[in-house]
C-alpha cells in the first residue's frame, strides 16, 4: 500500500535518505518488533521505533512506573507514577504516532511463554534488567529464528549486539552467527544491578537509541549488521569500540 500524503510528510527525513527512501519506509511500516522490558533501554527504543513508523510494536513489562524510573525512562511522565508501564507507554506512543499499532503484555517473560511471545514478531529487542529473562528471550529467539537486538547498561558502560543464531541455524557451520549465551555462557555471580550501583540516565538513552538504530537497519536491510560483533560504549571515557564475537561451539543454546 502506498504511503499517504501525511505519511510522506511525517517520514520525509527517512524518505530522502538514499538507504531508506520510500521502500525502506514501507518495510518499517510492514515490520513488527517486540520490546522486552519497558525500562531505561526499552523507553527510548520504543519512542524511536514508534516515531520511525514501525507498523506494530509489542511491549512486555510486569512493572508499574516508579518515581525513581523517571531519571532515565523518558517515555513516562510524573503523572504516570503508579500506572502499569505498558499502559502508560501505549498512551505515550499512540500520542506520538497513531500509525503504530501497540500491543501490551503486562507480565514477566518466562522460559514457559517466551517462545509464544516472540513468535508473532519479526524482530525482538531485549532491554531487561536480569540475566534469567535475557536467557529466556535468547533461547526463544534462537528457537523461533528471530533476530535479537540486545542492549545492557551499568553505571557508565553500555553493551549492544545483534544475535542471529536463530535465523542462521540452518546454514553451514562456518556461516552461523552467535547467540547471547555465546557471549554470556553462565549468569555472572557478581553481576551488579542498576538499583545498587546506579546508571546515568543519558547512557540508557544512548544504548536504547543504538538498539532502535540497529533494529531499523535490520528491518530495512541496510548497513553493516551488529550480528557477530559486540559494541562496547564507555561513557566516562567517551569511547566506543566494536569487537568480533563468534559462535561458541560449547554454547548450551546454539552450539
Amino acid at each position, binding site marked *: 500500500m502506498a504511503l499517504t500524503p501525511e505519511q510522506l510528510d511525517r517520514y520525509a527525513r527517512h524518505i530522502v535518505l538514499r538507504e531508506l527512501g520510500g521502500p525502506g519506509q514501507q518495510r518499517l511500516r510492514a515490520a513488527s518488533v517486540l520490546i522486552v522490558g519497558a525500562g531505561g533501554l526499552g523507553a527510548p527504543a520504543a519512542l524511536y521505533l514508534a516515531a520511525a513508523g514501525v507498523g506494530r510494536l509489542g511491549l512486555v513489562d510486569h512493572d508499574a512506573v516508579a518515581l525513581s524510573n523517571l531519571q532515565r525512562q523518558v517515555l513516562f511522565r510524573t503523572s504516570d507514577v503508579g500506572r502499569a508501564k505498558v499502559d502508560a507507554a501505549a498512551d505515550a506512543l499512540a500520542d506520538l504516532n497513531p500509525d503504530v499499532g501497540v500491543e501490551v503484555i503486562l507480565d514477566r517473560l518466562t522460559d514457559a511463554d517466551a517462545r509464544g511471545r516472540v513468535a508473532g514478531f519479526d524482530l525482538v529487542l531485549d532491554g531487561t534488567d536480569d540475566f534469567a529473562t535475557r536467557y529466556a528471550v535468547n533461547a526463544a529467539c534462537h528457537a523461533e529464528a528471530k533476530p535479537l537486538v540486545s542492549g545492557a547498561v551499568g553505571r557508565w558502560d553500555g553493551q549492544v549486539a545483534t544475535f542471529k543464531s536463530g535465523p542462521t541455524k540452518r546454514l553451514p557451520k562456518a556461516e552461523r552467527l552467535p547467540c547471547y549465551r555465546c557471549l554470556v555462557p553462565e549468569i555472572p555471580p557478581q553481576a551488579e*544491578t542498576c538499583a545498587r550501583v546506579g546508571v546515568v540516565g543519558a547512557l540508557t538513552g544512548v544504548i536504547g537509541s543504538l538498539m532502535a538504530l540497529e533494529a531499523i537497519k535490520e528491518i530495512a536491510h541496510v548497513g553493516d549488521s551488529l550480528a557477530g560483533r559486540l559494541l562496547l560504549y564507555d561513557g566516562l571515557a567517551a569511547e566506543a569500540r566494536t569487537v*568480533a564475537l*563468534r559462535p561458541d561451539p560449547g554454547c548450551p543454546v546454539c552450539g
Partner: protein
Amino acid sequence: MRVTVNGETRDVAAGLTLTAFLASIGVDASNVAVERNREIVPRSDYDATALREADQLEIVQFVGGG
C-alpha cells in the same frame, strides 16, 4: 613474554593458557568476557587458548541492567 591487559603491559610465562592467566590475576571468568586482539574468546576455548607475545587483552565486565 609481554602482553597488554586493559592497556597495561604485563610479563607472563610463555604458553600460559587464558584459564591459567585469569586465575593468576584473580579474575573469576564467569563475570567477564575476554577480548584478545579485538575478538571475544569463546569461553569453551579458554583452556586451549595459549597467550602469545604482544597479545592485546581486554577484560570486559558484563553489564546486565536495562
